[in-house]
């Protein structure tokens, strides 16, 4: 755990004529969680998407393991999972099938691993039903199983506890905790702190 795994310098981004990111700097090391906070519209979602390259940065650079991510975009993408406002699931496929394709595109994966991940997020009971028949919180649990399966060092999460019941909120905390313990790092946009011990959880307030 020498330097930081992910580092961003002086990020600037405009949406139409709004200067949303005004020179954001951040650095996160392995085993560390960075929680993005800030009022509605502060730019949390925008920052997450800019970090993984979905939004086009006007200025500034992002480094992964001290290499500019533009040098090896695909390699960088292979080491991260991004979970946005809505879970990326096909309504017509079951949870198992969804994970099989979504994560299967990234790594070799067995049916047992999928089942184990779904069980871990409490989605075992409805893992074979088409996602369109699931409630809002049930969908989110299926998507969280994707995180577990991916086995990548970097998690980018946008309000991961949305629609989850109290058990689900603890589940997210436990998942992140285990991920950090294994040396991974995570950046999460949150309105409620996730409940990770303060030593490992820093905060970046975007309103300022």
């Amino acid at each position, binding site marked *: 755990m020498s330097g930081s795994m992910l580092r961003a310098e002086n990020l600037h981004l405009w949406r139409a004529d709004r200067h949303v990111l005004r020179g954001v700097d951040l650095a996160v090391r392995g085993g560390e969680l960075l929680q993005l906070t800030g009022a509605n519209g502060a730019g949390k979602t925008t920052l997450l998407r800019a970090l993984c390259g979905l939004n*086009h940065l006007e200025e500034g650079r992002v480094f992964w393991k001290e290499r500019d991510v533009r040098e090896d975009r695909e390699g960088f*993408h292979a080491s991260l999972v991004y979970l946005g406002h*809505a879970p990326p699931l096909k309504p017509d*496929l079951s949870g198992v099938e969804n994970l099989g394709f979504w994560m299967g*595109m990234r790594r070799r994966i067995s049916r047992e691993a999928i089942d184990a991940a779904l069980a871990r997020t409490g989605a075992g009971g409805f893992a074979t039903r088409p996602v369109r028949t699931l409630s809002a919180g049930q969908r989110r649990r299926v998507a969280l199983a994707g995180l577990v399966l991916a086995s990548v060092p970097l998690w980018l999460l946008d309000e991961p506890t949305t629609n989850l019941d109290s058990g689900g909120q603890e589940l997210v905390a436990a998942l992140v905790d285990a991920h950090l313990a294994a040396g991974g790092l995570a950046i999460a946009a949150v309105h409620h702190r996730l409940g990770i011990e303060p030593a490992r959880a820093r905060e970046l307030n975007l309103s300022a």
Partner: protein
Amino acid sequence: MSPTPPEPTAPLTALRLVIARDLMLAFRRPEELIHPLAFFVLVTALFPLSLGPEPSTLRVIAPGVLWVAALLAALLALDFLFRDDAQDGTLEQFALSGQSLTGLLLGKTAAHWLLTGVPLSVMAPLMGYTLGVPASASLGIMATVALGSLALSFIGSIGAALTLGARRGGVLLSILILPLAAPILIFGSRATELAIRGEAYLAPMELLGAIVVLSFTLAPLAAAAAVRISLE
């Protein structure tokens, strides 16, 4: 992170997965598979309805009717090529998968052609027959429609990707693509006409083939660029 690093998926495996996924999704809703076919049949049937059943008239316009109907059927289906995946966030995950986006989109386009172009090219001689086209032209019609729809799928994939950000993609897509599809239509109906007359139709077929090759090499690149833009 698991103790052993996971084994990454090979590019070809990813391509296969994408095709398999799209076929599975399509067969999950089998009734939707016949949509382009039904549309094709109905549009073809509109002409005898509005022009009357005179076989001599119908035979003259058969190549035009078949090609326009097939083009429109394929075009309407194209609108869905990326739309569902964009809405539910799958495209975003494609772009972040660490695989080449161009390759993944190529897979989607291939699956799309299997699901629309191939059935259309099987159906075209049948509808041609109802318009008075001799059965001997069947093979020729089938081959030209198959080739033409393949080219259309590739060119159309650019339009489908470009209109992802647009609210009413469907019609805009047609407007963007129809002018670009004019050569396909011209060579395709020319070949069909020659096939109906029992003449050699290789020359326009070769031109169609050239368009296919050109679009196969360029379209997925352009589509990938367009998809990335749409994700912003």
